[in-house]
């Protein structure tokens, strides 16, 4: 659907300019969303409105924008972005442009330049050779930062929710879908991303191990289908616990029954890995002999384990500085085309925060609320598959790696 954003500012309320502009939009058969309205505090203060327009006919939308320009509503982007130099490290200038995760262009010196790494909730820093999103803590004194909305434009994903050929999923989240067909479709998207030279990211929660899915994720890593892994202390711990002790949080992964002394297995596992100094060292020493973490080390698949306040241990590889963990994740998301969020709430949302909207994101969880949470935090591209993650990854591994491989 053709979209344009216009900005109108000044004493637009008392002048009835805003009312006139909106009337013209409606008269033209277009829809509008008031993306931002700042009404002057007193009648001396100017007001400001940013209006997103959509129309099913691009020419009609263009003609509407021309008409609106007469009344002072200018298309966003008809001007260069305003730049202000940051005056201290870690602090953006007041009025900084807060980013979305959509593909974004910035106009500098009359020329549109694409933002290299779209990410929500960041600032935009212009250098001679690049326009980049920078999280607040990453800005440095002297950086030239975009302020306001002028000279910035975003592009909605070209197909609905960034997913092509996925018409089967017409509703966003539902448990009432034939799961086998969903598995086939997700596998198809993974193959398509790979064919397009994009990478595949898996974000795993501990329930993947609890439900018996860890060997299947390991299969996917071994077969080369997963290029990046994000998880926390829990997933990595239980993955290795199941390899070393045959349990996941003390429950046998084969019989499903409790095991004598099993409640401390994960602590002993963490303790031993800490003794080795790292997961890689534990693998090299032969302490870990299988599982997802083992396959990642063997295949050289990079992983980020982000810490949380309730972690046991934690494992020596866990980044307990959350800012450093987020930066480590940012460093690995370039080139990702498909993200598989597997039974993880916190890490899925954290990952959603650093992914561009164009990344096809599949959120597999038994709890419908997780997908909703992810979308509510801005990752609108996330498609939900409400199901038990264990059988799902089993099916996905069968699809991609072949049954019984």
């Amino acid at each position, binding site marked *: 659907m053709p979209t344009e954003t216009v900005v109108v*500012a*000044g*004493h637009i309320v*008392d*002048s*009835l*300019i805003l*009312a*006139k502009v909106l009337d013209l939009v409606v008269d033209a058969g277009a829809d509008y969303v008031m993306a931002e309205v700042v009404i002057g505090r007193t*009648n*001396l203060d*100017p007001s400001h409105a940013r209006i997103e327009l959509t129309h099913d006919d691009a020419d009609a939308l263009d003609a509407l924008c021309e008409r609106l320009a*007469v*009344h*002072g509503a*200018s298309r966003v982007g008809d001007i260069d972005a305003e730049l202000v130099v940051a005056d201290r490290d870690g602090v953006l200038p007041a009025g900084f442009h807060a980013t979305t995760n959509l593909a974004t262009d910035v106009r500098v010196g009359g020329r549109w330049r694409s933002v290299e790494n779209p990410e929500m909730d960041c600032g935009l820093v212009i250098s001679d050779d690049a326009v980049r999103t920078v999280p607040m803590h990453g800005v440095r004194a002297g950086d030239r930062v975009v302020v306001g909305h002028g000279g910035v434009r975003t592009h909605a994903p070209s197909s609905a929710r960034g997913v092509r050929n996925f018409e089967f999923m017409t509703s966003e989240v539902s448990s009432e879908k034939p799961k086998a067909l969903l598995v086939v479709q997700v596998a198809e998207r993974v193959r398509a991303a790979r064919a397009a030279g994009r990478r595949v990211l898996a974000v795993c929660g501990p329930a993947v191990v609890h439900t018996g899915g860890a060997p299947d994720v390991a299969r996917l890593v071994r077969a080369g289908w997963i290029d990046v892994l994000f998880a926390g202390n829990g997933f990595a711990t239980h993955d290795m616990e199941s390899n070393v002790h045959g349990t996941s949080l003390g429950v046998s992964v084969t019989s499903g029954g409790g095991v004598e002394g099993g409640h401390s297995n994960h602590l002993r596992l963490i303790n031993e890995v800490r003794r080795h100094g790292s997961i890689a060292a534990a693998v090299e020493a032969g302490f870990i002999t299988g599982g997802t973490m083992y396959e990642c080390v063997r295949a050289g698949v990079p992983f980020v384990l982000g810490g949380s306040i309730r972690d046991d241990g934690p494992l020596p590889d866990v980044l307990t500085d959350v800012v450093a963990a987020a930066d480590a994740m940012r460093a690995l998301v370039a080139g990702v085309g498909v993200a598989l969020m597997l039974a993880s709430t916190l890490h899925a949302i954290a990952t959603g925060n650093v992914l561009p909207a164009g990344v096809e994101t599949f959120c597999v969880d038994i709890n419908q609320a997780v997908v909703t949470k992810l979308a509510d935090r801005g990752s609108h591209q996330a498609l939900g598959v409400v199901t038990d993650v264990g059988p799902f990854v089993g099916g996905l591994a069968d699809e991609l790696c072949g049954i019984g491989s």
Partner: protein
Amino acid sequence: MTELAWGRRYLMCPPRHFGVLYEINPWMHREVVVDPDIAMAQWEGLAATLRSAGAAVEVIEPQQHVPDMVFTANAGLVSGRRFVPSHFRHPERQAETEVFAAWFAAAGHEVRRLPAASTHEGAGDALPFSPTDGPPVLLSGYRPRSDAAAATELGALLGCPVRAVELVDERLYHVDLTFCPLDDRRAICAPLGWDAYGRKVVEALVPEPLWLTDDEALAFTANSVVVGTTVVMPVVPVRVGRQLEAWGFTPVAVDVGEFLKAGGGCRCLTLALDVTLSSTSPAG
């Protein structure tokens, strides 16, 4: 009723190079000949009338090849010691900008510029109305000669609210052909010139408007100059004159017929120099 706080000091430009040399509004026809002697006599008559009403008149030297410089209302906007020169829509008038900017700079004004891409034709397209209980509001016309966006920029440069109204009749191409503030409650208003939104804006701003009929508006009745309680007008329709007198004003008709040939009346020939728009200091 409180008299206008401004209107006692004007800038005028004698019509030594005046003539209808091009056509940039529906009133201008190049085949119409301006009589330079009559024009000069009318101009001096207007200046004398303003002086006798109690106003001071300052004079800027006319320049060759810019015949419309005589219409000093379009020079720009004054607020205190700040001057924002006009950016003219038509190339025929664009040379006036630097002439007026230089005059104001020499007179000790701080000259502030609109962005290069913005068009606004000064006090011809923006007149202040100072309501009894509020700060001065600039009523600015847009579309034929000035950009709507320029109203926003003027508000920032002059430190006052600007209400932009769309001018919809090409014969009333500047807001000063549609609007003449009389005091803190009243103004001469020509609704013919505005769209429905603009009419509502004026109704909300002016408690007691003197509405002009279309014929009165097209006779340039609103293009008048107010000096205290004297209203100097290119024409005084009987009905309008009676209403002004009932309100305590003295309407005075001044023949500016030679200038009407170029689409300008009394207001167009003057620029008030004693206007202060901001109640606070404008944004730097």
